[in-house]
């Protein structure tokens, strides 16, 4: 029996189904909108300030109404409610909620099966990338020439924060969402996650938060930049309230997901799956989740303070009331820097996994790889103030934070050693996941090295706040993390769909995105070195050429990403059939049938060695 069902075996009274079984994404939206309107109506009368303006209090109440309505509508509260009234779910109910015999409809519901949640995360990630990508193209189009022609300053300023935050959300879930959910439990021989309902909860709270975040664009955007310095945040319109509320909800989603991952990995490994036989991707997930548990509560507090400042006349960040925006900056970066590694580690860990299979070799120095990820996890909690070197806050801490920051280059160097060491003397299979992996190696060097410049306090006093910083972290996020995510998608796609991701289209996509990244962000480094600040809707003629080149590069990236989207849609429907284990890998997810049955295993597997023994002497014919 699965953990989903264990608790309820003794319960007998079956539910007739009724309303609870008709809930899906559509009822969630409908109820969300209705409750948003009701909450707005109540707020208008409670907090009437003598004008028809949409006030901050109304905005927060409206957003809260949307969230609560959405969660009720999707069915997030059904099981706890039934438990409260003493009519806990029956076995049939639980099978129904796990998506048994529901066909495609299960992807639109509050489904507890980890594989369904994984697929839902793929769709959410792609939607977020689409929204963020469209905003990026709008901004790059504006920046093709000096002056403001395509969108005006107000619109441009409204875009920057939403582009940033949407893309950050997309990358936080890009690998942990789909693959820590779909693949990780199978990898450790479990039949589901430790808390299947919380798994669905983390997904749907994310959806409700993402929807609210995108709605910010409809209420005038959020002209503050995604780091939202407290003082400018206080000036922003009601978009800021939606933003803060979306973040508060998002941190809940991340925390719930992380608790689920950590518990699953620590308690649900099958017999023989000792820690030193754990696939390296599982280790990566464990460190990522632990780090997320530490980091995201800071974001929760940071945005809660912002909401209170705006609606309840507190003054956490308002200088006139005794507050300081340095408080906001500290809270934000206490989350913001660990978050970079919450994004990076899954990408690296997935590539480690893929590199062994593609090179037909064991992972080079497995223990060093784990040590490197552990060191990164620990150090990343101690570096946040390097984002504040030029803020004027605690100048004497510049030295200590420079030390912790630069120490990070040692564990980061280990990643290169492990990756290149694994491929070295391998029989490297140049499939598209491998191609994206080489792209990662190329870009991550550039992104990593340029980080060292910024960690040096005297040099940061020149480069901070410039396009150099933007180029640096785009080499990390687009050039490295996204490349790893696409590699992972191409690698695990056959497990999800039973079909290969189209090799030809994927290769075209790779070359377009790879070349586009070099052009866009290569030229952006030059803009920054020359002295162009970030987040500028317009710029002086000195930066004309490099910006033009960056915009052309951005269009090339867009073409590549659309090609990839085409490949995904085409292959999902009629790609080449792959069979259950197309890469001849040894990890458990490839040993179960495709499509993976509900509850994954007929018989619990027993593990006797780590998954990195490739023992065929001859090529395997396929």
């Amino acid at each position, binding site marked *: 029996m699965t953990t989903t069902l264990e608790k309820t075996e003794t319960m007998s009274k079956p539910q007739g189904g009724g309303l609870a079984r008709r809930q899906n994404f559509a009822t969630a939206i409908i109820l969300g909108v209705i409750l948003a309107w009701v909450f707005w109506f109540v707020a208008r009368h409670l907090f009437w300030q003598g004008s028809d303006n949409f006030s901050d209090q109304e905005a927060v109440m409206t957003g809260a109404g949307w969230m609560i309505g959405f969660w009720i509508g999707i069915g997030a509260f059904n099981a706890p409610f039934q438990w409260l009234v003493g009519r806990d779910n029956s076995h049939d109910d639980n099978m129904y909620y796990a998506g048994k015999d529901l066909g495609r409809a299960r992807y639109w519901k509050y489904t507890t099966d980890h594989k369904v949640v994984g697929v839902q995360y793929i769709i959410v990630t792609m939607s977020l990338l689409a929204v963020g990508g469209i905003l990026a193209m709008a901004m790059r189009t504006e920046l093709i020439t000096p002056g403001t022609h395509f969108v005006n300053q107000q619109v441009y300023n409204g875009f920057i924060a939403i582009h940033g935050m949407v893309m950050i959300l997309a990358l936080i879930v890009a690998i942990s969402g789909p693959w820590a959910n779909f693949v990780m439990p199978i990898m450790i021989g479990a039949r589901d996650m430790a808390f299947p309902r919380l798994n669905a909860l983390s997904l749907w709270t994310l959806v409700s938060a993402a929807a609210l975040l995108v709605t910010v664009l409809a209420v005038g955007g959020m002209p503050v930049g995604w780091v939202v310095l407290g003082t400018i945040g206080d000036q922003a319109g009601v978009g800021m309230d939606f933003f803060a509320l979306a973040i508060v909800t998002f941190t809940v989603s991340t925390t719930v997901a992380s608790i689920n991952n950590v518990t699953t990995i620590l308690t649900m490994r099958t017999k023989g799956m000792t820690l030193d036989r754990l696939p390296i991707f599982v280790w990566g997930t464990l460190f990522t989740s632990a780090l997320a548990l530490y980091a995201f509560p800071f974001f929760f507090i940071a945005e809660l303070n912002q909401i209170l400042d705006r609606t309840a006349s507190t003054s956490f960040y308002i200088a006139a009331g005794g507050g300081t925006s340095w408080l906001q900056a500290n809270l934000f970066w206490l989350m913001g820097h660990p978050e970079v590694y919450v994004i990076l580690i899954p990408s690296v860990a997935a590539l480690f996994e893929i590199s062994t299979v593609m090179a037909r070799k064991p992972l080079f120095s497995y223990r060093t790889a784990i040590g490197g990820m552990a060191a990164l996890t620990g150090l990343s909690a101690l570096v946040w103030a390097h984002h504040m070197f030029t803020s004027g806050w605690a100048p004497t801490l510049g030295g200590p934070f420079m030390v912790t920051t630069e120490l990070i280059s040692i564990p980061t160097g280990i990643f290169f050693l492990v990756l290149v060491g694994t491929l070295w003397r391998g029989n*490297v299979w140049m499939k598209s996941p491998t191609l994206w992996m080489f792209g990662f190696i190329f870009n991550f060097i550039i992104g990593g090295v340029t980080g060292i410049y910024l*960690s040096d306090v005297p040099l940061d006093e020149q480069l901070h*706040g410039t396009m150099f910083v933007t180029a640096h972290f785009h080499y990390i996020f687009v050039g490295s993390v996204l490349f790893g995510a696409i590699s992972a998608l191409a690698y695990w796609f056959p497990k999800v769909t039973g079909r290969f991701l189209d090799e030809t289209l994927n290769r075209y996509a790779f070359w377009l995105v790879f070349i586009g990244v070099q052009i866009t962000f290569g030229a952006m480094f030059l803009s920054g070195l020359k002295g162009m600040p970030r987040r500028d809707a317009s710029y002086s003629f000195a930066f004309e050429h490099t910006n033009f080149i960056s915009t052309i590069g951005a269009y090339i990236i867009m073409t590549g990403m659309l090609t990839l989207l085409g490949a995904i849609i085409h292959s999902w429907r009629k790609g080449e059939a792959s069979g259950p284990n197309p890469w001849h890998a040894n990890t458990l997810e490839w040993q179960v049938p495709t499509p993976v049955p509900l509850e994954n295993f007929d018989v619990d597997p027993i593990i006797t060695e780590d998954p990195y023994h490739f023992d065929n*002497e001859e090529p395997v014919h396929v």
Partner: protein
Amino acid sequence: MATSSKSSLRLFFWTWGILTVVFVLIGIFIPHRYMPGVMSNDANLALTTTILFTICAAPVAAGVYAGAIHILKHHRYRGDDVPPAAPPIRENTKLLVTWLTASTVLTVFVLVWGLGALAAENSTSGNPLVVDVTGQQWVWTFSYPGTQVVSNELYVPDNREVEFRVTSEDVTHGFWVVNFGVQVDANPGVWTTIHTTPDKLGTIEIRCEQFCGLNHAFMDAIGHVVTPKQFSAWLASQPARV
């Protein structure tokens, strides 16, 4: 394939060497070509540091790239089938120790350089010219304590240390003197300071580098580094304001 080690390793070392030289040349050329006019000791330091760090990073980056190129050329499986198993190398202590030592040494070097530069930058001459800088949406104002001069253009004499005391009237701004290589945030309700010593005459650019609202992109100011004589003359020529 993997056994033609001697000649293929020679290729690896050649690629490594050539790439290192190329990166060092790029690292010297680009900062000189692209970084803004250097007009203070701190801007000079920023330029030197950029070049030095590129030289330190060049062999590491070149090594990884040469490794990747080597793998693509010599360790790639060229059949259509699933490739056979490769030698199960799980550890190589010598390589591991070499790599960790090299990266630690480089990191420590970069750190020592940075901490030294930071200490040098923080030391002051004891007799700086103080300039009060106020940011407000979306204009910079400079005033000179001890005089009644208030200006939207910055004038400073060369070869004398300047201390900027920076604050804001509304939201957080980022006071950045591009040609001096120094910046500090302007926060409402507090004074933050930076200092630097201009060492070249000419026009300087000042920009805002913290997003501060609608016209953030246009929150620029012009400054001038002049001789001490010209500076006194300029101060005297300014109308006194109360």
